[in-house]
C-alpha cells in the first residue's frame, strides 16, 4: 500500500486551443475524503477523466492506487461520472450484475450484494423492473449502487449530489460517510461549497483550469483566518465604540469584528476583560470555503466556460 490513492504531477490537458487542465499536482492520501471544488468548466471533470484514464494527459503523470491507471487498478475504483447513464432497457438487477461482472465479480456474489444495496436504498421491489420505469432519482441511486457495488478502494464521484432531492442527498451523504469510515478513499467534485464543507477532510480548489490551493480543510481554514472575530456579550456595546469600532456588523446577538478595523483579536479580548464585559462567546472567525475561494481565485465565473471538446457537454 502506497501512501497515496491518487497522485497527479504536472498534469496538463488541452483540447485544441482550450487548456482544460494546466500543470496540475494533486495527492490524495489513502483513506481521506477530498473535495475537488470549482465552478463549472474549471476542469474538474477533465481531471477526473484523466485519473480514470478515460483521457490521457498531454503532459504529466497520473498514478492511481500506487501505479499506472491500468484496468486492474481502475476496477478497484468506483466511478460515478458526471453524465449519468444507465442501460434503460435492462432490468435493474441485471444491470448491476453486468457492471459487477465486468469488474471481475462472480455472478452469485454480485447478485447478493446488489440485492443488499437495493434493499438498503429501498429499491428491492424494483429489482426486476426495467430501468426506464424508474424515476430519475431512483435511476441515480441505481447508478450509485453500480459505483459502490464492487467494494472499491477509491470512490470517484463527479458531482454526485446534483439532481437529487434533499432527502436522497442525505441518504447519499450518509453512505459516502460510511464508506469513508470503512477506509475507502473518496474523491468527489462539486461546485457546492457548503456541501464540501460538511463532508471533506481535504479540499482542492480549482479555477480556470489551475489548482488554486489544496490541503486539509481545517488547517486551511485556520491558515486562512483573517483575524476577524465573532463576539457575543451581555450589556451594551459602548465599550466597542471606545475602542474605535463604530457600527459593528451584527448577526443576531453576535458582533462580527472584521480584521480591517485594525484591532487585533488579542487587544479586543484584553479590552473586553478590562471593561469587565461578560462574554458569552469570543471566537476567531474562520472563513467559509466560499470566502477562501473568492479570496484566491476571484469571484467564480457565473457562467461555465463553453465548448470544451471532450468535456462534459
Amino acid at each position, binding site marked *: 500500500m502506497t501512501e497515496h490513492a491518487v497522485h497527479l504531477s504536472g498534469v496538463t490537458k488541452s483540447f485544441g486551443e482550450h487548456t482544460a487542465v494546466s500543470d496540475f499536482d494533486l495527492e490524495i492520501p489513502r483513506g481521506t475524503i477530498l473535495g475537488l471544488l470549482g465552478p463549472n468548466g474549471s476542469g474538474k471533470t477533465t481531471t477526473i477523466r484523466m485519473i*480514470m*484514464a*478515460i*483521457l490521457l494527459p498531454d503532459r504529466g503523470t497520473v498514478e492511481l492506487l500506487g501505479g499506472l491507471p491500468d*484496468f486492474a487498478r*481502475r*476496477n478497484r*475504483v468506483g*466511478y*460515478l*461520472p458526471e*453524465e*449519468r*447513464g*444507465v*442501460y*434503460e*432497457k*435492462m432490468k435493474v438487477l441485471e444491470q448491476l450484475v*453486468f*457492471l459487477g*461482472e*465486468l*469488474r*471481475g465479480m462472480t455472478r452469485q456474489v454480485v447478485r447478493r450484494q446488489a440485492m443488499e444495496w437495493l434493499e438498503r436504498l429501498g429499491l428491492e421491489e424494483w429489482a426486476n423492473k426495467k430501468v426506464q420505469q424508474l424515476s430519475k432519482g431512483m435511476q441515480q441511486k441505481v*447508478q450509485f449502487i*453500480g*459505483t459502490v457495488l464492487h467494494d472499491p478502494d477509491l470512490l470517484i464521484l463527479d458531482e454526485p449530489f446534483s439532481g437529487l432531492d434533499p432527502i436522497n442527498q442525505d441518504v447519499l451523504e450518509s453512505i459516502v460517510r460510511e464508506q469513508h469510515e470503512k477506509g475507502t478513499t473518496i474523491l468527489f467534485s462539486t461546485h457546492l461549497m457548503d456541501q464540501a464543507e460538511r463532508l471533506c477532510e481535504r479540499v482542492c480548489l480549482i479555477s480556470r483550469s489551475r489548482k488554486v490551493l489544496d490541503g486539509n480543510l481545517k488547517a486551511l481554514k485556520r491558515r486562512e483566518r483573517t483575524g476577524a472575530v465573532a463576539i457575543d456579550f451581555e450589556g451594551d456595546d459602548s465599550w466597542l465604540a471606545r475602542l474605535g469600532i463604530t457600527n459593528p456588523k451584527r448577526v443576531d446577538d453576535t458582533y462580527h469584528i472584521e480584521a480591517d478595523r485594525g484591532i487585533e483579536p488579542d487587544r479586543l479580548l484584553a479590552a473586553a476583560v478590562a471593561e469587565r464585559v461578560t462574554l458569552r462567546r469570543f471566537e476567531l472567525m474562520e472563513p467559509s470555503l466560499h470566502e477562501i475561494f473568492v479570496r484566491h481565485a476571484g469571484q467564480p465565473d457565473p457562467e461555465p466556460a463553453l465548448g470544451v*471538446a*471532450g468535456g462534459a*457537454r
Partner: protein
Amino acid sequence: MRQVWVVLRREYIERVKTRGFIIATIAMPVLMIGLIGLSAFLSIQAERADRDLALVDLTGQLGEAVAAGMEAVGYDIELVDRDVGLQEMDRRVNEDEIEAYVLLDDLTLQEGTFAYRGKEAPGITRTAVFEKVVVETVLELRLSFAGSAAGLRELLTGGRLSFESLGEEQSELERVSGMATGFAGAFLLYFTMLFYGAYVLRSVLDEKRNRVVEVVVSSISPWRLMLGKILGVGSMGLTQVGIWVGCAALIGLLGVPMIAANWPAVDVGELSQLLPGPGPLGLLLVFFLLGYFLYSSLFAAVGAMCSTEEEAQQAQFPVMMLLIIPFILQMTSIEGSGLPWMDWAALFPFFSPIMMYPRAVVGAVPWWMVGTSLVLMAAALIGTAWVAGRIYRVGILMQGKRPTLRELVRWIRQA
C-alpha cells in the same frame, strides 16, 4: 477475455429477449411453415378425397394405356366400356356414384384434347397429371406408327442442355445446385451483414447516447467492448440464421416426401441433390464471419462518430453503399459468373462476401481466386478493425458535432 464474454452475453441476451427478435426469428418461419404445410395438407386431402373416377375411351386405342398411367400416379380409374353410353355416365356422376369421368375421343388422338366431365372442376394437380398422362400416351401411340417411337419421343420431351465443364468435373445437378446456393447465399450475406451491422451501430450509439459507456470503459478497454459487442450481435445473428436454416431443413424434410407422394414422376433423389452440401454451407459460414466482422466494425465506428439517430442515418450511407454496389453487380450475374472484370471486382474485400461466394460455389472462378479473396478479406479485417477500433475509442466519449474527415484522421492517429 472474461470481460469480452460478459459484454457479449449482455448484448446477446438483451437482444434475443426482445419481442422483435422472437417475432422475426420464430413466429415468421413457424407461420410460413404452417401456411405452406396447411395448404399442402389441404390440397392433398382434397386430392385424396374423391378419386372414384372413370374413363371412357371412344377411340378404342388409348384407354388401357391412359388408365394404367393414371393408376401409376395413384388414381383409381375404372375403365368403362364405350357401349355404356354417355347418358349413363352423366347419370352416375349426377347421382354421385362417381366423381367424374374422363372422355377420350378422336380429337384426343389428333390434338391431345380430352374432356373431364364432372360437377366440379379438377384441381391444378389433377389437371396437370392427367394432361401429361394423356399427351404422353397419345404421343407414344402416334410415334409408334412412325417407327422408332422411343427415340423420337426422347426428342420431343428432351431438349435439354447438358453442361460439360472443361475444368473440373461438374454434373448438371451440381451446377444448378451451385447456382441456387450461390444466389441464396449472396442474398443471405447481403441482408445479414446489413441488418446485423445496423444492430451493432445502434447498440454503440445507444450506449454512447445514454452515457453508460463512460462507466463501462472505465472497467474494460474500448477495444474489448467493441469486440464483445460485435461478437454478441454476431451470435444473435447466427442464432437467428441457425433457426431459419433449421426451419428450412424442416420444410425440406416434410416437403420432399410430400412432393414424392404427389408427383411420383419427380425423382426425389435428384431433388435432394439440389440442396446445398456441407461444403458450400461451410464456405457460407466463412464468408459470413469475415464479412460480418468487416462490416460490423465499420458500423461500430460510424456509431461511435455520431451522437444522434439522424447523424447516424447520414453517416452510415458510405458503408451502405459498400454493401449495395456489390449486391447490384451480383444481381446482373445471377447465374454466378458475369462479365470478366466482375471476377476481379469480387476480389475487393468489401465486395467479396456478396460477389465471391456465388462464384465460388458455382465454380465460376478458380479456387486460387477464392483463396486470395479470403486472405484479402482477413487482411482488410485486421486493417478495418484497427482503424475502427481507434475511431471507436475516441468517438464513444465525444459528444456534440460529428467529426470532419480531417478530425477523424486525427482521432486515428492520436488514439
